[in-house]
């Protein structure tokens, strides 16, 4: 779960990471009022969405006076930001973060993740702050230096010095490392991590990803989810043991397993089709869970056909999935054609259920022909 900037900073501040003075606002008036409570010569207004790529999409505006904070906030609030990570529909800006803007002497990039080799926290750092973490990692692996941290963070000071940071830079980084571990973060990015002209080090922007698998020991995570205003559809699906990602196309896709889901997605695009979603039914999902997931797809008018691609095994057997699909169809007014490719455990039983319950189903024996037919039925976007 990706936290928005203000929530990320609030968490870091609790561990002693210095952040610029700032306040959240949900209206332009509130944003302007906030300025009175922030000691600053000038301000920055930042759209709060839970996706990266915000700066490039025009979601960060500098403002010299409280009245221009008002005007910039008015423009941002209610608008939709479309970034590389939001999909075509973009994400609505429901809140802005008004912050003191600082003159910066130097800007760095730091991030924490777990090292897949040792399992220990790893610090990634670079001299050039500013660029999005994922872009940076993709384009510029050479300039990012890494340090795997032991329990005492041995060698941290030398590591930061070697990158050109002064002595004052270490304490906030240690504090950030503690926040990373104690909050079950899977990613913590502070970018830029900057030294202001008064010499103080600040987390100017921060992005935190929390491990929702650890929510059982963090009751506060539930509150974060609600505040984030995640896509209703995706969080509804999460509750039903289904990982669902909305895409822009017209072919609804029901698949068990992440790998088979990705393979199916590739083959749909290869065949000239456009997936409406990515779906991975977890092995713990019941028929009822699956019905909820299918209902979400049936409700979307742009979905012109459904592709059911299931390889039954473990506890996700074909009849379980078919029961869920049949139930969702029985309760839906929209009944787009369903192409079913069932294999593995109880495949013919599953097929029987779909036919008996009057699901408008066409059965295919292999993935390739099922996908070709589903793409044909979905037609042009």
């Amino acid at each position, binding site marked *: 779960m990706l936290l928005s900037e203000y929530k990320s900073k609030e968490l870091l501040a609790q561990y002693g990471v210095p952040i610029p003075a700032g306040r959240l606002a949900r209206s332009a008036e509130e944003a302007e009022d906030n300025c009175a409570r922030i000691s600053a010569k000038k301000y920055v207004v930042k759209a709060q969405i839970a*996706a990266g*790529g915000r700066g490039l999409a025009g979601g960060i505006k500098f403002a010299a006076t409280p009245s221009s904070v008002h005007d910039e906030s008015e423009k941002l609030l209610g608008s939709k930001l479309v970034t*590389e*990570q939001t*999909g075509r529909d973009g994400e609505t800006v429901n809140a802005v973060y008004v912050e003191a803007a600082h003159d910066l002497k130097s800007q760095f990039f730091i991030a924490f*993740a*777990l090292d*897949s080799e040792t*399992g*220990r*926290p790893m610090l*990634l750092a670079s001299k050039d702050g500013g660029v999005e*973490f*994922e872009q940076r*990692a*993709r384009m510029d*692996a050479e300039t*990012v230096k890494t340090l795997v941290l032991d329990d005492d963070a041995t060698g941290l000071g030398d590591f930061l010095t070697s990158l050109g940071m002064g002595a004052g830079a270490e304490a906030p980084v240690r504090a950030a490392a503690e926040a990373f571990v104690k909050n*079950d973060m*899977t*990613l913590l990015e502070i970018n830029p991590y900057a030294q202001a002209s008064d010499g103080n080090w600040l987390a100017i922007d921060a992005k935190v*990803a929390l*491990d929702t*698998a*650890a929510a*059982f*020991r963090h009751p506060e995570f539930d509150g974060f989810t609600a505040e984030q205003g995640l896509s209703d559809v995706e969080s509804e699906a999460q509750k039903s043991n289904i*990982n669902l*990602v909305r*895409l822009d196309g017209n072919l609804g896709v029901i698949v068990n*397993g*992440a*790998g*088979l*889901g*990705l*393979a*199916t*997605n*590739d*083959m749909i*695009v*290869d065949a000239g089709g456009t997936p409406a979603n*990515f779906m*991975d039914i*977890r*092995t*713990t999902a019941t028929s009822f869970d699956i019905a909820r997931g299918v209902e979400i797809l049936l409700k979307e008018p742009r979905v012109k056909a459904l592709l059911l691609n*299931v*390889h*039954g*095994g*473990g*506890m*996700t057997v074909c009849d379980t999935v078919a029961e869920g699909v049949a139930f969702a169809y029985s309760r839906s007014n929209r009944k787009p054609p369903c192409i079913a490719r069932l*294999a*593995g*455990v109880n495949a013919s039983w599953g097929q029987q259920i779909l036919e008996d319950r009057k699901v408008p189903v066409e059965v295919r024996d292999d*993935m*390739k022909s099922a996908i070709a037919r589903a793409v044909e039925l979905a037609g042009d976007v």
Partner: protein
Amino acid sequence: MAILVNKDTKVIVQGMTGRAGTFYADQAMRYGSDYVGGVRPGRGGSKHLGLPVFHDVATAVKETGATASLVVVPAPQAADAMIEAIEAELDVVVCVTERVPQHDMTRVKQALEGSKTALIGPNSQGILTPDQCKIGVMPTKDATPGGVGIVSRSASLTSEILANCSAADLGQSTTIGIGGDALHGLGFVECLKLFREDDETEVVVLIGEIGGREEELAAEYLADVSYEKPVVALVVGREAPPGRRMGHAGTLSALGALSASEKIAKLRNAGAVIAEDASDVVTKVIAKKNG
């Protein structure tokens, strides 16, 4: 032959008395695997599925001579269960539990350092040597013994490819899932090493995806040792939109991870035969066996 597990492997189940533990232990025993006991703290001395239940792993190993464990405990307890099995010096530990917190794996990885245990998972479908031993959750109806070794990161896609292989009369030596999480035990490289030394394995199928560095490391290894056996590789997720959370939990964090097409290029340069999509894998295996 085969890798890691065979007809002599004696398996205990951690969490055997639960719903999932009962289900998977029962299925594996019906398949003919040698399951010898279960572990459930507080229930030592009882019986379940006709097998003795022990309070802890060490006692279970002492009493039964178990060499492997299937960990089917809820996620909050999974790390402790894996560590207990590693400390009991089992040869193979398979954890199928999904949604184990990433930070818990810090402790598990520390326990693995210098140990003799091969950890498979977590969030893995497990390991299957057809007609000999199943430790995991995968279906067995389409598995047949033979010369194809399969290593993968995902369960249902592997079942699909395994079924395609069997339908084409290509049996399997061993099928192993390294798990879908970012932090896990055995990786592709260790599995490739094991298949390389296994006489029975003639062709290796490697099923990777976007996210993480497993495919890249595998490519480096294949090139380094001039791997003698043919490797057919599939990397899925070519068409997944960037930055979206698709695929396994471990696949979001970029951390220098290559794109699917970069991974494919690296594997191809390392000598692997690239399957265009899931249905193309078996075609490529047939071509390699006949070529």
